[in-house]
């Protein structure tokens, strides 16, 4: 398809549905049209992403565009440079079209912490799209774009992908440059990819991965070499951790996960029951590590160099406190205070203690990959929940990321793929299967997920309201 036609199609779908969904914070119609026309004049396609429009999460710097992490404290912020991932996609002929909604600074699992209103799930507009990459997941689920960039610090690409019935991928830590990703917790942050299929995500990974000297944590590896498409899963040992068991899940999700495991067995994979007892502490470890790092990272938002500024008494200290007090949303404030209290509260686990527990969890996870090739579980222990249902209840909100955080702590590659729908309160809602791989085994995770998709075709199911789209 011509690039211009692809852009016009995306714009028509956005026009038809965006007002109901709230997936996007901005759309660059003219920029996309101009770039598309230029690409259409080129004599030969640059590659598989030539002329493909995409959306990007608002915490990825896009030069000259409003990418302020859905926070009022970055009101009006237009980065003077683009993230490496965006630069590489543009160089490959992909067309940045829209900026997606998100939980402020990626703090959340429902998209409700955005300063610009929550994104609604295209499968049921009364439910959340998950988070924090809520808009990226909903934009793909609504058919606006074939893929979107997100981020994944503790499940933020995989969980919304699962709840919106699209494919999502968190690469190995360091596989995609973090340059230009607005930091949340740097030891955990990754750029994530959400797409209408794993095949699409593979194309994106091949383009955006590879060493970037401007990110000191970037792996010194060339762009990801993809595995050939698999017709079966024979020879693969897939571990099913009993601590991440389907029993954790709601009934509907549980049945779908069991069916997915059976499907992989039918494709030739050997299913192996494994135990990862230390990962029961993963969520608490994640909460401490991520809050401490966030409190430190967000110290830079002080109303001095960018964003909004509030003043009360005309002093510098007063300006900083007032700006931060009135411009951070409630969840950001809560996490910053938690991270700060953890560093000073006697009787609470310190960042250092959590970092030691993290080492033990990581060692346990790495050791299991001497016995199995992949781990399989639900991505989230539930289907999309109702908007407002968990507001102000952090513990219930964190429950949604229970199965996603172990891979984040260990920097492991993990995909979420649709594995069918279940009926909840009379509505069909998607369920996601998570496949987590050994350190740096991104290509193995993707080829396995792609084989599962080719066999089950669950990824082709679409949210009902997209049925009449152009």
């Amino acid at each position, binding site marked *: 398809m011509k690039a211009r036609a692809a852009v016009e199609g995306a714009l028509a779908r956005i026009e038809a549905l965006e007002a109901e969904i709230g997936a996007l914070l901005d759309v660059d119609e003219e920029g996309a049209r101009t770039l598309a026309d230029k690409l259409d004049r080129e004599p030969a396609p640059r590659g598989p992403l030539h002329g493909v429009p995409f959306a990007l999460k608002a915490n990825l710097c896009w030069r000259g565009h409003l990418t302020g992490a859905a926070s009022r404290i970055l009101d009006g912020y*237009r980065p*003077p*440079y683009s993230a490496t991932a965006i630069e590489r996609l543009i160089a490959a002929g992909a067309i940045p079209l829209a900026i997606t909604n998100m939980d402020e600074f990626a703090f959340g699992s429902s998209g409700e912490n955005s300063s610009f209103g929550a994104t609604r799930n295209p499968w049921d507009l009364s439910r959340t799209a998950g988070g924090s990459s809520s808009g990226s997941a909903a934009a793909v689920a609504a058919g606006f774009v074939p893929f979107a960039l997100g981020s994944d610090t503790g499940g933020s690409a995989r969980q919304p992908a699962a709840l919106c019935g699209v494919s999502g991928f968190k690469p190995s*830590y*360091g596989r995609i440059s973090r340059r230009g990703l607005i930091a949340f917790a740097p*030891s955990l942050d990754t750029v994530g990819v959400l797409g209408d299929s794993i095949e699409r995500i593979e194309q994106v990974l091949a383009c955006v991965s590879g060493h970037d*000297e401007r990110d*000191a*944590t*970037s*792996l*010194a590896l060339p762009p990801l070499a993809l595995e050939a498409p698999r017709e079966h899963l024979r020879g693969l040992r897939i571990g099913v951790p009993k601590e991440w068991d389907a029993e954790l899940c709601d009934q509907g999700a549980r049945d779908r996960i069991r069916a997915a495991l059976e499907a992989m067995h039918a494709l030739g994979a050997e299913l192996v029951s494994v135990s990862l007892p*230390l990962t029961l*502490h993963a969520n*608490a*470890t994640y*909460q*401490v590590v991520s809050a401490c790092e966030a409190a430190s990272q967000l*110290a830079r938002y002080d109303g*001095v*160099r960018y*964003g909004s*500024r509030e003043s*009360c008494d*005309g*002093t*510098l*200290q*007063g*300006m*900083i*406190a007032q700006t*931060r*007090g*009135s411009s*951070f949303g409630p969840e950001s*404030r*809560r996490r910053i*205070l*938690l991270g*700060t*209290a*953890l560093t*000073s*509260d006697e009787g*609470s*686990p310190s960042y*250092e*203690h*959590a970092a*030691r*527990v*993290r*080492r*033990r969890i*990581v060692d346990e996870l790495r050791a299991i990959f001497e016995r199995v090739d992949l781990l399989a579980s639900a991505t989230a222990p539930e289907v999309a929940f109702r908007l407002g249902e968990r507001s102000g209840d*952090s*513990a219930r909100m964190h429950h949604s990321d229970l199965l996603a955080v172990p891979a984040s702590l*260990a*920097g492991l590659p993990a995909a979420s793929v649709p594995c069918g729908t279940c009926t909840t309160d009379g509505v069909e809602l998607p369920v996601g299967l998570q496949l987590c791989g050994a350190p740096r085994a991104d290509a193995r995770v993707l080829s396995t997920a792609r084989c599962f998709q080719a066999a089950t075709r669950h990824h082709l199911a679409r949210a009902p309201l997209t049925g009449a789209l152009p």
Partner: protein
Amino acid sequence: MTAPQDPATERARRAAALVRIAIDAHELPGLAAELDSALEAAKSLLAVPVEGVEPLWTLNEDAASERLDEVRPSLARDLVLANAPEQRDGMVRVPDGPGGAR
């Protein structure tokens, strides 16, 4: 004279002051309760033995690459200043310490 605050509220007030976030007095008790329950939940980690375990500060410990210490072009001043809430004479402008702006 302000009324004495309970320890949880005082902890929240202290954390907010430390991290330079102005919080209205009426919001403090609610924030303190949230903070209290998050800290309680985190305490489960204290039961995990970690004696002799090295902290994991960063993944890819072998990846931290060294770069040549050389001058490279940085962002243009006008591009950076374009995002500043206030600027003057090519510099970011901030209020003075006690005593107002300059």
